């Protein structure tokens, strides 16, 4: 990959469920699809398991963007974990937006085990979107602020 030094390389974490999206990402691999290296995947049993605090922690640790992905509605391995997650994200997203946190940096998506190509697209789109938004300095500044205070 030809990278220029000027180009901003966003750091992105993906929170995915084991049964659909993780497997979909595996399929992207076995299909040898190519996508950007910026996204690192954390495997959860189910989207229902993804604690909203972990998303905040990712931002705190310097993530510029986040992907949250699981099984399509009605396809959940545990029948309804994704439905619960969907409600949680609806509420969480509204609250974050109200507090001025940039929800454009969190991409929610459903990727099934058969959608390797969709996964590759999602990664590339997210990287491009976050790259366009630039580093999440706003958040990082209060994170480092706190580090500074902690050091005192």
């Amino acid at each position: 990959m030809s990278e220029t030094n000027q180009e901003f390389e966003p750091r992105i974490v993906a929170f995915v469920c084991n049964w659909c999206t993780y497997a979909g990402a595996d399929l992207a691999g076995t299909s040898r699809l190519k996508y950007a290296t910026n996204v690192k995947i954390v495997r959860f049993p189910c989207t229902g398991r993804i604690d909203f605090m972990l998303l905040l922690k990712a931002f705190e640790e310097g993530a510029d963007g986040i992907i949250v992905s699981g099984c399509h509605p009605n396809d959940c391995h545990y029948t309804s974990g994704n439905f619960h997650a969907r409600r949680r994200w609806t509420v969480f997203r509204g609250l974050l937006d109200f507090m001025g946190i940039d929800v454009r940096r969190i991409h929610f998506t459903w990727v099934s085990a058969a959608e390797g190509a969709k996964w590759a697209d999602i990664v590339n789109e997210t990287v491009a979107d976050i790259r366009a938004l630039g580093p999440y300095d706003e958040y990082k500044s209060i994170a480092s602020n706190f580090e500074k205070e902690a050091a005192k």
Partner: protein
Amino acid sequence: MSKLSEKAAALLSEGTVGLVIGYEQGTHGTRPKFCRKAEDAATLILNDKCLNNIGGYLTKPELIGSGKVAVTATLAVMRTVVQLTAEHQLTDGNVIVLALDGDEVLQMASIDEIKKWLAAHPEDLSDENKALLSKLKALSREERWNFWINEMNKCIKCYACRASCPLCYCNRCIVEVNCPQWIKPWAAPLSNMEWQINRVMHMAGRCVGCGACDRACPVHIPLRLLTISMAGDIKEAFGVASGTGNIDGNVLSSFKPDDKENFIH
């Protein structure tokens, strides 16, 4: 003696309840009053100055013991009783609610009765809150961020918001969990904000809208706006009113297959 005081005194002297929690006039506004004897009830009042949510005391066994309790109730207190019962923190029938219907004192002993009363008396947002909310929502995202970061900067992590909230009854709050340390314990904008996000998310579908958190805040962060805004989102997205004691599950522990998902691609 007011009719309210008479009723409360009667409940105590009959032995129906061992404790009546209510309000009395204090030096600076109203204050909670715990009546254990009939004569204690003489000073009880109940009016729109009674803003503290005394429903919160109901989950404190050290205060109320194990017997029946009566509580003089504003609508917010009634919502608290209903919600706490749905969350198995109160036993239906163990709490007697005394409310005012004009001059008359209503005595409600069952959750169904209280729910009926609440359904007949919906409480809308105050004009002031509405105005504040729409003002904030009209801001750009960056402006909202700056607004809240500025507010969060003031926070001294005293947890008065938590202490005053009738629905913050956990034995161990998430801020006291250190494995992992979800939220850094010291006061700093980030951890303050994380604390508030946690507190508010934990109120999803449960907040009774009493505004106690907001009034308790010593640095005057408009905390109520967070829960009000969220309750609005929930109502819009799922058609569920917050703090109504839905026994079929909390808004986040239930779902409909066709819940809207316009943000998921």
